[in-house]
């Protein structure tokens, strides 16, 4: 992201104001003031709810009053979360991983075409990628439920071709992964496009000048230059996909395709007295994703991203 800001700053005309002579002390207070709105926002809407959620995850149910809790240090909630819902965690990571993979396969060529080949169509393509955001995510997923319905065009065609052994598409893991891929695709396209678009075309040309063929140039020059976008795209896809429950709820089935988000939802809303376990599930998921992202960035991350 620093590259982007440097690029923008370099492009504009600079009216270089000399730094005010007030000295370091004044500058530091300006920094505090600038941080204040964002900091307060984070405190109010991120830190406090997080602490609240953590205390809920340690509460115990009030004996004899299902649905009421008292403050406690009940680690057992985490035990329940990890043992009873291990399959859901596995499924969340698997589905999110698959969705990220498919989104990458679809997004990279698209972003590449937009950056280098689209010409006057670039803006149209850009609008096509962004346009779905103008409609609610839930509505679009419900629309997919209609499109993939048993009597709908997709399922009927597949059934006609004998390509649909189960007889239906919705309520299967394929529908869930397809929904996740669809919903998070723009988050993969845009960062990759951004990094390809600002890649210096002369460097790529130089690859050809040095007798590399098209594929070698791509592998050794273009792809590395787009890595910040790829990393950002995979993170922006994987993290929300792992926590998503809308796709599994609307396109999946009751038992075999549920993800962690679904059990968090049902522990909160459908199971009486499930708040502490739901909170523990939320925290475990957060920790798991944080750890994976940390390892991922350590392994593949670039200076530009951090």
């Amino acid at each position: 992201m620093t590259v982007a800001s440097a690029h923008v700053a370099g492009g504009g005309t600079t009216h270089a104001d000399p730094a005010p002579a007030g000295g370091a002390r004044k500058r530091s207070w300006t920094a505090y003031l600038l941080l204040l709105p964002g900091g307060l926002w984070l405190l109010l809407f991120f830190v406090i709810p997080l602490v609240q959620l953590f205390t809920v995850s340690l509460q115990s149910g009030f004996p004899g009053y299902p649905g009421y809790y008292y403050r406690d240090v009940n680690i057992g909630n985490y035990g329940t979360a990890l043992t009873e819902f291990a399959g859901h965690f596995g499924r969340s990571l698997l589905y999110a991983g698959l969705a990220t993979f498919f989104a990458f396969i679809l997004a990279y060529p698209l972003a590449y075409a937009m950056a280098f080949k689209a010409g006057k169509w670039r803006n149209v393509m850009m609008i096509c990628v962004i346009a779905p955001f103008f409609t609610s995510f839930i509505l679009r997923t419900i629309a997919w439920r209609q499109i993939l319905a048993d009597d709908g065009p997709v399922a009927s065609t597949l059934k006609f071709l004998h390509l649909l052994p189960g007889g239906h598409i919705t309520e299967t893991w394929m529908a869930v992964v397809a929904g996740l891929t669809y919903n998070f695709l723009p988050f993969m396209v845009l960062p990759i496009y951004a990094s390809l678009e600002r890649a210096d075309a002369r460097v790529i040309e130089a690859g050809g000048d040095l007798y590399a063929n098209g594929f070698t140039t791509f592998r050794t020059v273009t792809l590395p230059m787009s890595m910040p976008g790829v990393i950002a795209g995979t993170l922006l896809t994987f993290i929300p996909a792992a926590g998503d429950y809308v796709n599994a709820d609307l396109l999946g089935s009751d038992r075999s395709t549920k993800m962690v988000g679904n059990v968090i939802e049902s522990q909160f809303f459908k199971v009486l007295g499930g708040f502490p376990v739901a909170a523990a599930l939320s925290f475990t998921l957060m920790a798991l994703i944080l750890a994976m992202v940390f390892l991922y960035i350590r392994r593949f991350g670039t200076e530009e991203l951090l």
Partner: protein
Amino acid sequence: MTRRNVLGGALLGGAAAALSACAPPAPPAGGGVAAAKLPQDLSATEKVVRWANWTAYLDYDEDAKNYPTLEAFIKKTGIKATYTEDVDDNDSYFNKIAPQLRAGQDIDRDIFVFTDWMANRVIREQLCQPLELIRMPHASNLLDALKDVSFDPGREHSLTWQSGFAGIGYDRSKVGRHLKTLDDLWAPDLKGRIVVLSEFRDTLGLIMLSQGVDPSQGFGKQQFEAATAEIDKRIADGYIRRVKGNSYLEDLKSGNAVAGIVWSGDLFVLRAETENDHWQFQIPESGGMLWSDNMMIPITSTHRKNAMTLMDYYYQPDVAATVAAYVNYVCPVQGAQAEMEKIDPELAKSPFIFPSAAYLKDNNIKGFRALTPQEDAEYSAAWAKVVGN
């Protein structure tokens, strides 16, 4: 003092503040709803009433996009009534609003509608306000059989909205035959095209009846588990596509499901909405389930009087008959049958709206017995496992 220190300190301070502010609400003290402190009633100055109800549960005009009886109420009383189909399922709606009610926060609703057993919990936990029946002259039109229910003796906190049956619903044009028993649902050609209700008292009640168990009395854990095992097997084998709240109607509409365990009135509304007269509702040969939904005023509502005015309005026989003619549920209002003669003489004979005692007996229609809180917790947990919650 570095910036990092200041920021860290602010975060810690915030965390400490959050910790002290987040003690969970304590269970209610004894004394029942009578002991609960009521909020000040603002009905005189704020002419509004906000009503949360289930899907397909009030007469709706497709062309005008409004609810005719509710429009008439607004015109008559000047109280601006808003209606939302918030409730998909007793558990999910209750668990959504209960934390707010317990913390004394307004939920933006002045009337909500719950099934008997959940109404029982709402009253027991002091989450609703008492009704002043003296201000509700038409409330005495309530059917005698419903006047003294176990969860609300004397009807001091709740009034029946509608009652109804759970049974089999299906599209005859797609199924191609009549479905008369629950076993008819588990046919190879219907595999994966069946929806059942997430309301276990309805779904398991029907299964129990088919297993020769009377859900209205004296069954125990063993019988409950036998019924649960049946549904568990049907889900595992892929016969049951989804277990859902009121949104099962969407699956019937889209064609993903062609049959299922459903609520009686919904199928009649579905007929009208899809303009398909092949939708059938059938009480299984082994018997059907009867339930009632009840209007109540949330403990935090500041429009108690307006809410009572609205409830009273719907207890006028002619208004009740108009609603029943649309929703096709069992009407709890005395005198509505005579009014129905004027609207549609056919419907005045419908057993789904005005069932006679003989009809209920002949068709073996039962209510699910009240569970003790321990049973409730245990059975709900067993059911939650089966349906993947």
